[in-house]
């Protein structure tokens, strides 16, 4: 079947909406949101890191820019979530393009350090920007009955598309996650993906063969940054609070790198597998025994997979079937 993947995407979205329609325990939306967010972040990271071989430690920077663009829009214009996501995507994409232009001449560990510095510089900037709450952070109360073109789409008394804000944000995150996976798959199957793979294998050889390496890398940083920014834009509304420590937390950088590594970096399904698996384990750990063990679990799994299955879960499965 030709459009198998696209039909799968639509089915996933329908399932996500039905899940909100069931109005199960509200915590499941709260736990599901970060898992979907991780799917998006890991997928976005993988476009540059997995296909192109450029290790980006600046995920928190792009995510934070998305979050604070959303905060600024709420403070300035009282913008709704859709506007926040679109504009955050544009701003973070532009940042990705600019950073890419300045840093893509660096390779390996130098590129990684440069992107890590990005997050720190941006965090310092936001720390001193009082309009968005400065270092103290800022709290929000999401509108109880938001409207879009006169239609109330959240109403706790029923009769609207969603029963509460958490369900709505869960669905928005599901749409964004599916959108990012679709983008990643399109890149992987197209000329851009093949070009990025050739850069990963041998950049000089790719250049000699006529691959426009700089243009492809800039395209990848822009798309990757934009998707991370979009994932960040929903974060303040979901948390109802944001501060620079949260938005620019290095945990995002570690997760965005570990999830594709564990799932498999060479295909679009790898980051999805890694994010769903690790995200679920982390959410489960928070509820059951300790919220502090998240990073420990992550570290142990990362060491395990890097040594036992260096191509990730998907790679391990495919190898076994060769």
């Amino acid at each position, binding site marked *: 079947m030709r459009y198998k993947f696209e039909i799968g995407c639509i089915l996933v979205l329908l399932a996500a909406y039905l899940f909100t329609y069931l109005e*199960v*325990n*509200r*915590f*499941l939306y*709260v*736990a*599901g949101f970060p898992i979907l967010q991780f799917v998006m972040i890991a997928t976005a990271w993988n476009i540059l890191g997995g296909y192109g071989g450029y290790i980006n430690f600046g995920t928190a920077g792009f995510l934070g820019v998305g979050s604070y663009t959303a905060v600024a829009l709420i403070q300035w214009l009282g913008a709704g979530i859709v506007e926040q996501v679109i504009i955050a995507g544009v701003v973070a994409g532009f940042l990705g393009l600019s950073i890419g232009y300045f840093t893509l001449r660096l390779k390996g560990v130098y590129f990684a350090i440069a992107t890590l510095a990005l997050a720190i510089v941006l965090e310092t900037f936001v*720390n001193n920007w009082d309009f968005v709450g*400065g*270092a*103290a*952070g800022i*709290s*929000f*109360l*999401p509108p*109880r009955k938001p409207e879009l073109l006169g239609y109330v789409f959240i109403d706790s008394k029923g009769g609207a598309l969603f029963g*509460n*804000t*958490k369900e709505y944000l869960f669905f928005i995150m599901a749409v964004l996650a599916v959108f990012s996976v679709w983008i990643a798959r399109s890149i992987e199957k197209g000329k851009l993906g093949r070009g990025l793979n050739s850069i990963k294998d041998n950049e000089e050889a790719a250049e000699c063969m006529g691959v426009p390496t700089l243009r492809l890398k800039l395209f990848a940083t822009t798309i990757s940054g934009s998707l991370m920014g979009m994932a960040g834009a929903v974060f303040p509304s979901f*948390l*109802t*609070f*944001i*501060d620079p*420590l*949260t938005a620019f*937390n290095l945990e995002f950088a570690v997760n965005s790198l570990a999830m594709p590594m564990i799932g498999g970096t060479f295909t679009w399904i790898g980051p999805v*597998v890694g994010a*769903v*698996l690790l995200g*679920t*384990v982390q*959410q*489960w750990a*928070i*509820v*059951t025994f300790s*919220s*502090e063990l998240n990073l420990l679990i992550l570290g142990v799994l990362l060491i395990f997979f890097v040594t036992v299955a260096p191509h990730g*879960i998907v790679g391990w*499965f495919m190898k*076994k*079937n060769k």
Partner: protein
Amino acid sequence: MTRIMKYRVRVMLLAGLFAVAFMLTSVTAPVAQAQNKDPIKIGFSMALTGALAGGGKQSLVAMQIWQDDINKKGGILGRQVELVFYDDQTNPKNVPGIYSKLLDVDKVDFVVSGYGTNLIAPAMPVVIDRDIVFMGLFGMNNNHKWNYEKYFQILPAGPSPAVGFSGSWFEAIKAFKPKTIALLAADAEFAQNLKEGAVENAKAMGLEIVYNQNYPPNTSDFTPIVRAVNSKKPDIFYIASYPNGSSGLVRAIAEVGTDAKAVGGGMVGLQYAGLMSGLGPNLNGFLNYDFFVPEPTMNLYPGASNLIERYQKKVKAENLKVDELGYYLVPWAYAYVDILGQAVNAVGKIDHEAIAEYLHKTKFTTVVGDVQFGENGEWTESKTLAVQYQGIKNNDLDQFTKAGTRKIMFPADIKTGEVKPFNELR
């Protein structure tokens, strides 16, 4: 088995793995509603690690003492009380998730706040969204943005907490007849609110503000900041800081020195046993806020002394790794859950509307005396003390259990000493 079959089996195994992973989160969500004879659950986040752990841990012990007391008396509405809590790690980002978990997974009957303004702020949107009663523990002006009618808090800073909190301190410094003031605050919710109030008090006294800056909460070296303040030669140096900053500033001032006659004001953490004994004589001269000190005139809170004694015995007997003295938070942490318990018992049912209404109109008798909530759930009167650290000889904790190391400078009717210039006590 053919290779294709093997592949399909592996794909099914992978799908099964995801299904199990998803179900792991589902099984943790209890489905049954609380039965009438089940305990009444009170949920909260608490700073058990991180910068505010010194206060958070002693608050938790105080709440557990209250839990034992109330359960011995028959509990709330004839049901035993159970406390459900999670460590927020003094990290605001953990708070919304914890409260969501408490309400949706643990199905608690009530939530109360964790300790401190910065940790109450992120919980506010969650409780407002659920429209439930919310008791706050040491929240500085948390409700000014929301005007939420079901919020009540236990910081005795009066109806206008930002101004009332530093009111006693500014009264105490009048003895120096100051003309100029420097203000320094951590860039965090609590400290910013406090500084805002201090600026109002300073203006009301006609002081010229020669320095007014913030510092990021993760600052570790304060010597450049203290030097910058010294260059402005202020008569008075007002500081609003959280424990890490307070400790860093005390050490930096010990190293660099200052000519200001009064230093301190809103330094959280200097009341913790660990910091007091750690900083020892470096604290001499600091003029700071407090709520309870072991001074002979300390009769503001009649039930507090007995409770603190019980707390200290419990800590010793059970060898708990918490603040050994408990002066700072124990009475307040006990009182805020006690008030909730009193209100629910009086209303006779779990009805948040009726409980909030009762909390608004009633004067409660507690271990911290009579408590009446006014507008925005704040206290109707301020009972903040201004105390000066004097005569600290070494790092021995015992000296802080006796009168004389933290003398009361204001309110005037219970003062136990004369305020002295900072450098005279160094």
